[in-house]
């Protein structure tokens, strides 16, 4: 039962922002529903014609011309129907059609129409206001002028062929905005979307290449050249944009890292981690995008190569397997023996080529099967993953050991001195580690974490550890886990009951110019 509920919960996640999505869909449905009722010219596709009127209105708005009147629309319709259907409409008829289309799209030239729908997210009946065109100017008893509303413009924008090609770019702009505003959790979701779009782009390019290989004679070279230059240009824009996003992310990271340690909030640490994850994911997406750019983009080259291969193979003619072969057999009831000759070029008989060598019996037996090959391959992948995990583990361990050394010094001060200073703890470090600490972000992070934790009570340690799953990310410093390791190494320190780091007035100045508050360390046994 729980499982079913869980499933339902996950499945219903797709309904999130249902209203928003419906409000994007609604203008299209509205347009299709309203335009289908014009009976006078049965052969005229009213959806196409009505849609073309929207385009005409937009065109008039774009080129700075005076916005169009109903007579302009009527003239346009007259021209259109003559050209596409060879229908000669009188001025009166074209005005009638223009009014019909106007009323269909927007009531009497500008009223808001309610589009009713069931919001499946909230399970309520709701409505969306639709207003695609509006009167921009009118004088009583004179012709009004029409313009598209924002909603109408948006609808037209969404129908542009180029829209899908710009999808990656639009998502990039969105991502850039999110990063600039510091909405990193939202940015993470956008990077995932971007990743999906790059994968879709790969599929699109692969199917284009496949189409070239399978259907090279049906492709118009000029169209292909244009497509190629468009894709190439778009790729370049996207590449530049990826570079920009990475730069902005880097700047954000550097800005946070520049903040003085005692001003670092938990929020900033979280942001830093998000930036880390974001950078990693973005790198994967960018690498895939670059790979596509380098490997898949030679579309024209692929076309020329395929044409060359086809030319080398001689003059091609269409062979109709159905009419010239199958139907001939059927219609005159032929002996099917020639089918063998027709199909035999498809099959190769490698088995007949094998000859047994008697000395084979003396060789050690080597059994090689497909299953083994598969196993080997999967082992290789597993091995690669294992190697990667191993590297990550080692990296984490190196870092843990370093942070443990800082922490141990602080604990030793607390244990032996009861009350001491951070400068004293630092004095316990060897020279190398002392120098490292002076510019090590981990050292500053550790001190901030200890300070923010206020009074750390070690009697809770076991309880905390038992409830905690070891965080394997390389970024987080897990002080509880490190305490436990230090206590295992130096059991006498277990006598410490509490630890507290409080600010003081003094500062420690490192040789490299960095400064840090000389925190007071307090330990109670």
């Amino acid at each position: 039962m729980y499982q079913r509920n869980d499933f339902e919960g996950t499945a219903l996640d797709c309904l999130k922002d249902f209203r928003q999505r419906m409000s994007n869909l609604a203008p299209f449905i509205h347009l299709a529903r309203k335009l289908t009722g014009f009976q006078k010219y049965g052969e005229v596709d009213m959806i196409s014609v009505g849609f073309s009127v929207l385009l005409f209105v937009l065109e008039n708005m774009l080129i700075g011309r005076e916005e169009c009147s109903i007579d302009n629309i009527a003239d346009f319709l007259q021209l259109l129907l003559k050209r596409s259907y060879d229908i000669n409409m009188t001025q009166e008829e074209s005005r009638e059609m223009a009014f019909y289309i106007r009323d269909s799209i927007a009531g009497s030239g500008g009223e808001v129409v309610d589009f009713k729908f069931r919001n499946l997210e909230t399970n309520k009946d709701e409505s969306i206001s639709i207003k695609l065109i509006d009167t921009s100017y009118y004088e009583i008893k004179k012709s009004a002028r029409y313009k598209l509303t924002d909603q109408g413009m948006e609808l037209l924008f969404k129908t542009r062929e180029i829209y899908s090609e710009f999808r990656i770019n639009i998502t990039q702009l969105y991502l850039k905005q999110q990063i600039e505003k510091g909405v990193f959790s939202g940015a993470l979701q956008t990077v995932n979307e971007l990743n999906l779009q790059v994968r879709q782009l790969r599929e699109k390019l692969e199917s284009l290449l496949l189409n070239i290989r399978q259907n090279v004679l049906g492709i118009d070279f000029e169209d292909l050249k244009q497509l190629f230059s468009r894709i190439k240009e778009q790729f370049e824009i996207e590449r530049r944009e990826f570079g920009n996003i990475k730069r902005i992310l880097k700047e954000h990271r550097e800005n946070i890292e520049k903040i003085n340690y005692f001003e670092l909030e938990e929020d900033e640490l979280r942001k830093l981690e998000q930036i880390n994850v974001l950078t990693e994911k973005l790198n994967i997406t960018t690498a895939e995008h670059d790979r596509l750019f380098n490997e898949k983009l030679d579309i024209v080259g692929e076309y020329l190569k395929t044409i060359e291969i086809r030319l080398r193979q001689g003059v091609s003619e269409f062979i109709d397997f159905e009419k010239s072969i199958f139907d001939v057999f059927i219609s005159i009831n032929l002996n099917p023996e020639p089918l063998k000759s027709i199909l035999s070029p498809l099959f190769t008989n490698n088995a007949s080529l094998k000859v047994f060598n008697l000395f084979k019996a003396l060789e050690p037996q080597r059994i090689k099967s497909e299953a083994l090959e598969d196993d080997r391959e999967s082992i290789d992948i597993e091995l690669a993953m294992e190697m990667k995990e191993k590297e990550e583990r080692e990296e984490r361990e190196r870092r843990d050991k370093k942070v443990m050394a800082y922490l141990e010094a602080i604990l030793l001060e607390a244990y032996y001195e009861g009350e001491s200073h951070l400068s004293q703890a630092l004095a316990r470090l060897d020279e190398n580690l002392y120098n490292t600490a002076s510019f090590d972000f981990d050292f500053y992070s550790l001190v901030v974490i200890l300070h923010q934790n206020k009074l750390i009570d070690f009697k809770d340690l076991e309880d905390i550890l038992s409830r905690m799953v070891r965080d394997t990310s390389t970024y987080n410093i897990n002080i509880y886990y490190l305490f436990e390791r230090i206590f295992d190494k130096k059991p006498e320190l277990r006598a410490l009951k509490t630890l507290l780091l409080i600010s003081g007035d003094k500062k420690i100045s490192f040789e490299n110019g960095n400064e840090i508050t000389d925190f007071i360390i307090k330990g109670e046994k």
Partner: protein
Amino acid sequence: MENFSPDSVRKAFSLFMNLIEKSKISKKDEPELFMSYEDPEISYIMRIFEEESGIMVLHSSDTLYYTPRTDNRFFGFTNEELRDKMGFANNTELYLSYIIILSIIIKFFNGENYNNKIRTMLNVEELEAYITSKLQAVEAMENNEEIDEALNFNFRSISKLWLDMPAYDEKIKNFSQSKGTRISYIYRTIKFLQEQGLVNLDNDSEIYTTDKMDTLVISYYPESTRKREILSFIERI
């Protein structure tokens, strides 16, 4: 091109043997070998090998395949070998299998004016329905006993075998091992085509042609002299 360098002959022979052994040479897996075919001298020697061995090398943009020329008994199959391979008792069953293969080609490659690939997937059920409708047309024609007697075999014997069988029997668990239904014959044929690297079967009923099949059908058959040769097989009867 009279005096070939020993190195070119060696490379051409290596290419030839690899192609025969593996049935294909792909640019991705064996870039050096694949590219050697581009060398004019090696390519010339390969053409001599092709002529003498009765095969033909087919070239897609990133893979080389070969096909035995019609009735090549060394690299091709005899009817008997094919019957053994697919487990058929007689030639009528084998011919039925040819019809199934021909129908797969029709369904995938019979474009409007040229032999391009017109679909990516074919359902087994659709294939069965297509063959059935075609063979029903044979049954519907007037009986012509004279041709029957003169040739021992004819199309009617194949259509009778097909149409007398049920299309499908849900009791059968492994269709490629059985023979009692039309679907069984399709699966047997597909199994053979899979072994030949020509098709793949997904979700138990979706047939996909491989790059090898696409290259063979699109490159081999439509060439004008081969087309005439193929059609002449039928005209000769």
